[in-house]
């Protein structure tokens, strides 16, 4: 009863840490863990000692000092009296703006180019090959600079729009002006402004925006209910009721009513003094960066899409045709769902690449987080280590969020094994 060592369980000896298979893996893991932690400790300690030798401390207090500089594009209200923290937030939002715009546009460009490259039309297929190879094989920074240089050198300056016989004129019924500084586009204005919701920290959202979002989400839910009802009727009676006009009405009529209620209209930009005012001036830096990121990443996505479609065996489409499905439905119902399984995982890394590549923005004077926190703030405060660490953290979190979102999407389309 008191004998603790049961038969087959010899007493523990230190040599068993190496020679006994039950303990060996644990031993090595502990050793590696200790080594890694020691290395990390050494790196941190080394940094702290060197900073101390230079007489510098490590703190993030600079974030709450007055920034003192201006930023060309501010999604949230910002003046030079605000803190470095707010400047960093403005930069982060600018990064998000160009990344989201870029991801959406690159997906469209990539799908179109990828499908077109498989086209039976020789000319279209070759043109797409030229596009893909040209953009994949030249560094992104050069594309950004080229696009920006074209905007700067080719477009007229704003004062070319002045006078009775101007050298340049606005396009789209005098609503849009392409200049070498920005593209002046109309803004949406309301005659019946309902005011804004104050979120604190001088960030506001117009009640009109909230109303539109609520109406659109509501419309989408109702549309799904109509679809479910149509399915039920079809299951019971065998004939599906015509629902397209209901869906259309549900999606558009409430929005149109809101537009009428708020008196929503376009306000065209006009030349006042040195620059266009009244409208929204979209900086050329943003447009150039967006365009270059889109075309560059689009070329990679095109190849991913092409690979995904080619990965679906030919027998699948032949079988679909044999069942009498039209080519469009074959693509939508048979090929794409299977191709998506191949496309999504590499697509995630393209989105991540695009987001990280947007840090080249400073080349065209677009103030993203690298331009504010990692540029002017770093320079004015001299806090290199803190600013760079913060930026690394921000990009890491952004990438993890994108990755998590796309992984959820991936798990929905991937092969369900039962």
């Amino acid at each position, binding site marked *: 009863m008191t004998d603790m060592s049961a038969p087959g369980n010899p007493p523990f000896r230190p040599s068993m840490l190496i020679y006994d298979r039950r303990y060996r893996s644990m031993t090595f893991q502990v050793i590696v863990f*200790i080594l890694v932690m*020691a290395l990390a*400790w*050494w790196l941190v*300690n*080394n940094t702290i*000692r*060197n900073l101390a*030798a*230079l*007489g*510098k401390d490590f703190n993030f207090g600079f974030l709450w000092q007055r920034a*003192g*500089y*201006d*930023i*060309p594009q501010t999604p949230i209200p910002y*003046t*030079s*009296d605000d803190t470095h923290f707010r400047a960093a937030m403005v930069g982060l939002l600018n990064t998000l703006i160009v990344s989201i715009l870029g991801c959406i546009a690159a997906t469209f460009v990539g799908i179109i180019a990828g499908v077109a490259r498989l086209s039976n039309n020789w000319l279209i297929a070759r043109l797409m090959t030229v596009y893909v190879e040209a953009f994949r094989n030249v560094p992104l920074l050069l594309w950004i600079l080229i696009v920006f240089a074209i905007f*700067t*050198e080719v477009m007229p*300056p704003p*004062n070319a729009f002045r006078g009775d016989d101007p050298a340049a004129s606005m396009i789209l019924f005098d609503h849009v002006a392409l200049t*070498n*500084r920005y593209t002046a586009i109309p803004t949406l204005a309301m005659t019946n402004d309902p005011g804004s919701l104050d979120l604190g920290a001088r960030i506001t959202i117009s009640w009109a925006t909230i109303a539109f979002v609520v109406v659109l989400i509501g419309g989408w839910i109702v549309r799904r209910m109509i679809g479910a009802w149509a399915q039920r009727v079809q299951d019971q009676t065998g004939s599906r009721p015509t629902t397209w006009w209901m869906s259309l009405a549900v999606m558009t009529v409430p929005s149109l009513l809101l537009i009428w209620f708020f008196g929503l209209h376009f306000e065209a930009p006009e030349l*006042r*003094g*040195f*620059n266009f*005012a009244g409208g929204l*001036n979209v900086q*050329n830096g943003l447009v150039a960066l967006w365009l270059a990121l889109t075309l560059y990443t689009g070329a990679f996505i095109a190849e991913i899409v092409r690979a995904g479609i080619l990965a679906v065996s030919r027998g699948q489409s032949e079988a679909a045709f044999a069942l009498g499905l039209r080519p469009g439905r074959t693509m939508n119902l048979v090929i794409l769902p299977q191709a998506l399984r191949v496309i999504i995982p590499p697509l995630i890394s393209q989105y991540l690449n695009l987001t990280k590549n947007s840090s080249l923005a*400073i*080349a065209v*004077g677009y*103030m993203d987080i690298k*331009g504010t926190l990692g*540029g*002017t703030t*770093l*320079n*004015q*405060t*001299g806090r*290199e280590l803190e600013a760079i660490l913060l930026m690394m953290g921000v990009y890491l979190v952004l990438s993890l969020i994108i990755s998590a979102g796309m992984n959820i999407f991936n798990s929905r389309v991937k092969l369900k094994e039962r």
Partner: protein
Amino acid sequence: MKTSIFLGTVAAATLMAGAGMADTLADVKARGELNCGVNTGLVGFAAPDANGNWTGFDVDFCKAVAAAVLGDATKVKYVPTTGQTRFTALSSGEVDLLARNSTWTFSRDTDLKLDFIGVNYYDGQGFMVRKDLGVTSAKELDGATVCIQTGTTTELNLADYFKANNMAYQPVNIDSNAEGEQQYMAGACDAYTTDASGLAATRAAFADPENHIILPEIISKEPLGPAVRHGDNNWGDIVRWTLYALIAAEEYGVTSANIGELTTSSQNPEVQRLLGVTDDLGAMIGLDKEWAKRAIMARGNYGEIFAANIGEQTPIGLARGLNAQWTQGGLMYAMPFR
């Protein structure tokens, strides 16, 4: 146990490396070359010529320091630094001396742990516009688009100036002077702002300098000076007194042409001390007797360097103004050599 010994050794080595960095003079002498941080390219101040040789006002100061310390004005390695990288280059030890038209400010001197050793050019921020814009004063720039080098004090002055005058503007952030020039020439900004000396240098490089004007408003004080790392006072003294030697030489009429003659003939005790004829001032800063003489012989005294690079006879055409000797109504004032 072994780990802690290893780490202890590393930590000690790190500390010693930090201590070693503190003796810049010994490092420079051992290396036989002075690492000098300069502008990436600002004609008149620091720019490589057609043959790749660096010339300019700041470059000549590097040469003077190299001549004083190493006895050879050519033993300089020029490290081009941008507005963003310059202070990191200095504090990391990549350069021994930063002579790159940098403004002396409180936070740079204290928080960034730099030591500005003096002022070699009293400057101020100005605006350049095209003549055909019809603007004659910076107060008329309300609503204008302004090109501005990011990471400089000018960026902060610009924001303050427009705020104080209750005007709006649209900044265009650019990375280097060359890029700013290109944006300005293409008309992507109405005005280009930087130090007035920089504007003059930039304008001199244009094909049509007569079509651009520099507005009369000077919106800030920009005392430009060479900087060294905080903590090595002896090295700071060497660089500081090299600058004073150049300024004092002009005051006493010592030029690169007559310096040999004055060494033997001058009866002025201050000149005799400066040129190492009587007292051995050099020994007090770890150099030999003739350090100042060599510094002056390298590219001439302060006035000669000014005239050769940015003076009125050059395309840049800057008047001495505040940078004249104190005896001529300027601010250049060397401390006594005694």
